[in-house]
């Protein structure tokens, strides 16, 4: 097990290294890094100071070294717009995004898994067909448009829920989140539902596919032949097996929730790092873009690592092989 984690961690570091190389060459290939990373409004003295600081006057291999060292120190440049370190800006907005993504993940799972299992157990029933038709619809609806519809209906027409912003932030056990206040919850509900809808469909489809495959396995039939109650067959024998692919996907889905939060955050003016990156792209605030990219890459590599480890914990076949 430890050997496995160690091996996967090494792989992750290699991927990170490659990605840093890609981002670096991206910055250098697409345009002039001096132009890319230095505020166009800066005066000559300022430009020269930054060139020195970033090592842009050095040969390309050395520049990469500087880039890497600066990245290690957490220095990913200074925002043109805010005049603050790019990393600090992103880290400040990260909790809002993670809170939104986690809450929508929660919403999508509590609905999707039961619905998916039902649709998989009774594929021919009317309800299952409705579930599947709904999931195609959910899958097809562009996130941003659903967000607009939500705002129009729930915020403008009915006036039930606020349409923008994050709301009041509460604190519970030292964790700060808008999930702990009523005002915060009312603010997060629409964007989270919006973000969840897309994932809801894919988790339903995945659960259904898993259910349909596993329900025909001999071990399910054998469990029934043992006289085990149907509820136990579903909740233990079936669920434990479909959880393996679902957990794998959830990890990746969480990543894509973070990615799609760029859209949802823009629609609902949610002050997270997704909105920040879109604004930065508008404003050509390149240090923030590069920093966001690096953070996202680290985040995804870490997420994949976590998923792999979770996967081994869930599947005894992999777990025990890994320990040998």
């Amino acid at each position, binding site marked *: 097990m430890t050997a496995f984690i160690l091996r996967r961690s090494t792989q992750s570091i290699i991927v990170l290294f490659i990605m840093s190389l890609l981002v670096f060459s991206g910055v250098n290939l697409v345009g002039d890094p001096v132009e890319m990373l230095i505020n166009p409004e800066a005066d000559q003295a300022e430009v020269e100071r930054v060139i020195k600081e970033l090592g842009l006057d050095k040969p390309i291999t050395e520049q990469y070294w500087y880039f890497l060292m600066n990245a290690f120190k957490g220095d990913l440049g200074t925002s043109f717009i805010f005049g603050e370190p790019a990393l600090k800006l992103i880290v400040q907005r990260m909790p809002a995004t993670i809170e939104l993504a986690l809450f929508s993940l929660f919403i999508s799972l509590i609905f999707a898994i039961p619905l998916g299992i039902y649709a998989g157990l009774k594929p021919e029933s009317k309800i299952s067909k409705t579930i599947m038709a709904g999931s195609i619809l959910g899958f097809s609806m562009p996130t941003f448009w659903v967000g607009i519809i939500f705002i129009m209906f729930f915020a403008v027409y009915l006036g039930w829920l606020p349409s923008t912003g994050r709301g009041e932030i509460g604190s519970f056990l030292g964790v700060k989140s808008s999930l702990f206040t009523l005002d915060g919850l009312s603010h997060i509900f629409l964007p989270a539902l919006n973000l969840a809808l897309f994932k809801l469909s894919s988790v339903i489809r995945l659960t259904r596919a898993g259910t349909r495959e596993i329900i*025909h*396995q*001999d*071990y*399910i*039939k*054998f*469990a*029934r*032949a*043992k*006289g*085990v*109650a*149907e509820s*136990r067959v579903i909740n*233990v*024998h079936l669920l*434990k*097996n479909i959880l*393996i692919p679902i957990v794998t996907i959830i990890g990746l889905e969480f990543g894509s929730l973070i990615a799609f939060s760029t859209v949802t955050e823009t629609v609902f003016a949610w002050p997270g790092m997704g909105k920040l990156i879109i604004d930065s792209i508008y404003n050509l605030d390149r240090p923030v873009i590069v920093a966001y990219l690096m953070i996202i890459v680290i985040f995804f590599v870490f997420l994949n690592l976590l998923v792999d480890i979770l996967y081994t914990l*869930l*599947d*005894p*076949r992999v777990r*025990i092989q890994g320990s040998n």
Partner: protein
Amino acid sequence: METILEIKNLKTHFFTKAGLIKAVDDISFKIKKGEIVGLVGESGSGKSITGFSIIGLIDAPGRIVSGSINFKNEPLLNASSNRMQSLRGNRLAMIFQDPMMTLNPVLRIDTQMIETIKAHDKNISNQEAFRRCRDTLGLVGISSPEERMKAYPHQFSGGMRQRVCIAIAMLNKPDLIIADEPTTALDVTIQGQVIYEMQELCKKTGTALLWITHDLAVVAGIASKICVMYAGRIVEQGSVDDIINKPMHPYTIGLIKSVPSQNKKGEPLHQIEGMVPSMLELPIGCAFHDRCTKTIEKCKIEKPIETNQSDSRVIRCFNFKDIRK
């Protein structure tokens, strides 16, 4: 002796998109207490479906269309699903063909065994259930059962897994075990051991055994009665002695001739001409007629009915008397 299972005119049909499949079509046989009955047939002849019909686990689009199954004088086809569930794994157990697929890969052996006891006895303590499982595991020839209880299925070999399945089937000392090709997926050396062990266990506990197989040689060694199935029907049944030494149905005769040990060295193996018909397009008349060496005109138009030769001997053929001559 007391009859434990009586099947009469059972028909299990599958209503598939491609058409109607009469997987089991009008079969009748009896199993007495403690008796070992062999159900022999090629793959697709409906022998496994017969087994699943008995324990009431026919999946859609299959359905038992007519007939009756009486288990200890209780009609099973009218039984509620709760009643069936309380019989399954308790009085009526089943062992499947492929031990690699039968145990749930993500649950430990102890979980999978204990739940079988707890499903039928809610009041039993965990320790008591664990003890019983451990002892049964030891009984089927698994060494250091206490340790092995904590293992996952993939840590066992195929033969060991099948022993675990047998132990699970034996846990509640059932009256009947349906063994669906339990040794087919195993190595030949393991096969012999498992067959021997099962025979011994059933003798000890007085459990009846319905041994489903395609291998006549295996079943000839352990069963006291054999039913030969072809294309959803039992074409011949009788005592082992009668079937092996005095087969009457042309299909049975062909089957026995095909067993390698029946041949002399150097002679080519016997084979039954032609192919197993598709269950979707069975020939009109006797399903075997186009492969049969004794076909008469009647076989091509009419399905043969069952003829009782003696109390235990039943044959489905128009022309078997001529064969005996």
